[in-house]
């Protein structure tokens, strides 16, 4: 009775709560509660499953939960907000590999360990046998792809630059076809359990290689897209595992995550004016810059200023807009930005923040960083909202951003970033660019904004320069 009726009802309830929870997470006011609802749904799903299993040997289950719970819990509490993209990437990978491992475990339980000479298709049913393969494939790709994304984001091993192997499309196509071919072969043709086991492991190995191959050619600037996509994959992998186990709850929850990841992927692609195919296969950043605008390092007159000069301008500004970019995250300067903003506001200046959709290393990253520094989220303006406002603004302070404020995107049709939506900061009376050097951004192209007459270049580490500005503004206020 319990197994046939109560458990399915609990699963249904759990699926409904997941939907409610995720819906809640799409609005600021309800987001925190939505997250808790989803967490409760997860608890319910686990409780229902334990009910379904009846009394079993819990040692391995408890062991696994303790190990995973401690690792996940400590990571969640300790992680710095600047490192959030890395951690989400790793969590993604964990979900992906878990799905793959569950599918493999089914192969062992129902075939290999029983030792029956029969195909997987006839033991599990064709639908489950087929989806075992997909679950292993997608889960494996999610795992190794996420690990590489993590390594790129953390600046470890690979320095974030795209690595382009010759003939990689052919190699990747062969890997996918090989994994699927071998998968279908071991699922429906092979009858010897030992061979099934071996081939299943080989498919996992191929999918791990494939995940690496798919992510290494993608540049650092495209990481927001990649993380969103891997997020989607981890959901699809869970769904596939749901097919294997004939469990609708897994299918539904996985599909929700898959959809959410795809939506975010699409938002990121639109923000960069690129198609998904272009991000995945283009190897942006390694593409030759097609004329227009000259080399990345050739600059004419660039005006360099000190913090003192900048403070004099800021003193008379009535309206200031900050444009934070990834450089701000790297320098951990979000709190210093807030400090400067507070001083300006005390001085009577209106302060706002313009957030480009792909600022930071994952969707919405910059919003989280500024929220951490206690910046009210009402002050964070989206690109479409703030763009008409720049012409009425006295000073724009760009901290560690480059490509997202490049005028070439709107003015030079030959530019590699032509058509990409950018923040039109140059329309403000004065633009202050805090930057370490004239080095190009991830797109690897020149930014003529540096040469504009209303541009003040403040060459320094973001945090250091902001601290100097804070000190200067304090003097102004004291005077």
């Amino acid at each position: 009775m319990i197994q046939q009726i109560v458990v399915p009802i609990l699963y249904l309830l759990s699926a409904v709560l997941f939907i409610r929870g995720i819906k809640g997470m799409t609005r600021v006011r309800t987001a925190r509660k939505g997250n808790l609802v989803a967490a409760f749904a997860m608890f319910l799903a686990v409780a229902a499953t334990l009910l379904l299993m009846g009394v079993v040997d819990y040692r391995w289950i408890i062991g696994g939960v303790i190990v995973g719970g401690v690792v996940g819990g400590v990571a969640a509490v300790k992680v710095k907000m600047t490192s959030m993209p890395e951690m989400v990437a790793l969590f993604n990978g964990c979900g992906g590999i878990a799905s793959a491992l569950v599918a493999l475990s089914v192969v062992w339980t129902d075939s290999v360990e029983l030792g029956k000479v029969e195909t997987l298709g006839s033991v599990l049913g064709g639908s489950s046998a087929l989806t075992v393969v997909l679950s292993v494939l997608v889960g494996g790709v999610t795992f190794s792809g996420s690990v590489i994304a993590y390594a790129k984001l953390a600046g470890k091993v690979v320095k974030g630059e795209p690595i382009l192997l010759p003939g990689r499309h052919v190699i990747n196509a062969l890997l996918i076809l090989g994994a699927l071919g071998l998968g279908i072969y071991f699922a429906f043709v092979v009858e010897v359990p030992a061979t099934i086991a071996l081939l299943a492991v080989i498919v996992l190995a191929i999918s791990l290689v494939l995940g690496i191959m798919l992510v290494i050619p993608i540049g650092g600037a495209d990481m927001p897209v990649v993380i969103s996509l891997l997020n989607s994959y981890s959901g699809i992998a869970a769904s596939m595992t749901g097919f294997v186990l004939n469990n609708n709850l897994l299918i539904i929850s996985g599909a929700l995550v898959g959809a959410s990841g795809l939506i975010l992927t699409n938002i990121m692609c639109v923000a960069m004016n690129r198609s998904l195919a272009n991000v995945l296969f283009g190897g942006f950043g390694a593409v030759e810059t097609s004329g227009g605008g000259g080399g990345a390092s050739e600059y004419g007159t660039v005006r360099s200023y000190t913090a003192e000069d900048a403070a004099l301008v800021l003193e008379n500004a009535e309206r200031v807009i900050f444009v934070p970019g990834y450089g701000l995250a790297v320098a951990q300067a979000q709190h210093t930005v807030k400090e400067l903003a507070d001083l300006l506001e005390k001085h009577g200046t209106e302060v706002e923040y313009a957030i480009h959709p792909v600022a930071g290393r994952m969707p919405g990253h910059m919003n989280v960083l500024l929220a951490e520094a206690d910046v009210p989220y009402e002050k964070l303006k989206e690109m479409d909202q703030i763009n008409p406002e720049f012409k009425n603004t006295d000073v724009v302070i760009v901290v560690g951003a480059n490509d997202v404020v490049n005028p070439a995107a709107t003015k030079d049709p030959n530019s590699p970033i032509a058509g990409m939506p950018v923040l039109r900061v140059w329309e403000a009376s004065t633009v202050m660019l805090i930057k370490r050097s004239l080095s190009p951004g991830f797109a690897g192209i020149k930014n003529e904004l540096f040469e504009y007459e209303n541009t003040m270049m403040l060459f320094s580490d973001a945090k250091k320069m902001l601290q100097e500005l804070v000190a200067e503004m304090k003097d102004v206020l004291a005077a």
Partner: protein
Amino acid sequence: MTESLLFGVYVFVLAIFVGFEIITKVPPTLHTPLMSGANAVSGITIVGALIAAQTAPPTVSNILGFLAIAFATVNVIGGFMVTDRMLGMFGQKKKK
């Protein structure tokens, strides 16, 4: 095969559409928490992992299940906790 597969595909496709319908117009402020929260939901695979890890003696399937539970729990616990932490930062300002 066809019947259970088709039924699953129905559920899958409809759920994708539900996902697209409810997640329209996410404000950019919430992109990161939404992603990490959704990410935690993908840890639902823990349900499968529980079933896989239940057998008693350490067999291969059991060890695979154990690993799956550990990975899925990192995903679930870590994901929900960090999302709550982030969303807590958005909430603070309202009280002030």
